[in-house]
């Protein structure tokens, strides 16, 4: 699942730094709270959450086919990660990593066009473009 994390107070270049383990712990705690021991045990096999890109605030969560319903049901309730007020939005749930990365690429493409239309000066456009595309798809999940 591809998730976008929107913090409450916007930083100036709206980037957000969250270490992946705390994001993983926050999700696990919320599932334990909402789905109890049974839920926490059900998703433990093959559950991984990685926070990828500070600037575009995208995280990827991997879960097995049956228990992924638990995660989608928990995401709207996650309010606070690493003592920062956040709200999670699921952008895409796909079965393979390739699909997720393809989605992320054209998601960022859309983001760039948005930002380019607002900015006028040329060099700002170039800076934003290469910052967004820094994300490389070869990074594998832990």
């Amino acid at each position: 699942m591809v998730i976008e994390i929107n913090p409450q107070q916007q930083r100036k270049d709206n980037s957000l730094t969250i270490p992946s383990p705390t994001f993983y712990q926050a999700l696990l705690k919320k599932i334990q709270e909402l789905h109890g021991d049974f839920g926490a045990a059900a998703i433990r096999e093959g559950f991984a959450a990685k926070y990828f890109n500070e600037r575009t605030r995208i995280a990827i969560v991997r879960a097995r086919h049956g228990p992924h319903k638990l995660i989608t049901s928990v995401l709207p309730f996650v309010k606070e990660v690493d003592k920062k007020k956040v709200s999670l939005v699921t952008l895409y749930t796909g079965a393979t990593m390739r699909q997720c990365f393809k989605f992320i690429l054209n998601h960022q493409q859309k983001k760039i066009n948005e930002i380019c239309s607002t900015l006028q000066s040329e060099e700002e456009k170039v800076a934003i473009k290469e910052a967004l595309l820094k994300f490389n798809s070869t990074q594998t999940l832990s």
Partner: protein
Amino acid sequence: MLSPEIWNFKAPDSLVKVEKGNIVNNNCFNTIQKLHHNHLVSVVLPDTLRVPQNICETLKNDCEYYKISNVGLDELVNINFINAFVRKGIFISLSINERIDCDDCMCITPNGFLLLSLTKETYESLGLEGTPSHYYNTKQRYVVSINLLSNHFKPGKKNYDRTKDRLLTLKKMTLLINWEPPHLDICPSSVAKYFDDLKFDVQVCLPDFQMRTNYTIKVPNFTMDNIHEFVEWLGMFSLESDLGGGGESYLSTYETPQPYQEYGQVKFLQWRGFFSSQQINKLLEVLISHLKDEEKPWISLYVQGFSDVVVGWDLQEHHYYTNGDNGYVIVLNSEDYMVYQHMCSKKSYK
């Protein structure tokens, strides 16, 4: 990697058959015929001040049954026993203190079948022809059926001798016996005397009878559409649970089904023991005659079979997954009747 079901689990299912119709051509009787071994009978009589004596008597006098402990099964196959009791009158018997899902059980049906439900090991060392049970796909349980009344089942015949000495190898069981003599002058206790001479310890058991009256009860009138709520109310009433009296109570949100009337007294009668289907028939006739002469909203009769019986409904195999109940509810009023049959499910567990 396939992951197990974690969201909605399916409860073990059971089979319900509902049958409605006009009281004139009711066939409650053949449903009663189907269930041979009955353990618990309960009757609900709304709006009655005094229960007529003949209702209480039908299942009380001469309804004794006998408990015989550690009987070898070859006694039941011995020919003069068959000629004396099984051929004449209606003879039913059942093994108790044995679990149908892990031990070996025995039962005799009125039409003269001796049925054994055996585990794999006892079946293989018994040596009588049997069919693997429908519910276990790994052939862990077998059902052996011996027809006692068939005419070639006589001493001297190969089949008879083999059955007799093979049954010796089975372990001894405690049995319940209920025999109805063909005509009235033979006393039903001659079965007990027969076993007494053979030096088995025989106990006479009387069915225990309870009667209870509840006052000012909201009774739903019997309509053909919401049968389930009606049967549920019957259960609530028989177990004396709170019938959703006041407003919102924390404990239970149960309300009596809507079109109800208030009655001063409602009687609840319950018999427990070992009854044959003929005795239940007599009780139903008495109830129908009682319904005719006194005007009643409705009358309900609930009969529950044994949970460890080899054959549930008319030679259909019975099993005990987490609950082994088979029973039926009959509700009558002046124009129509309803039979609510509740059986164990027919699916074998995979």
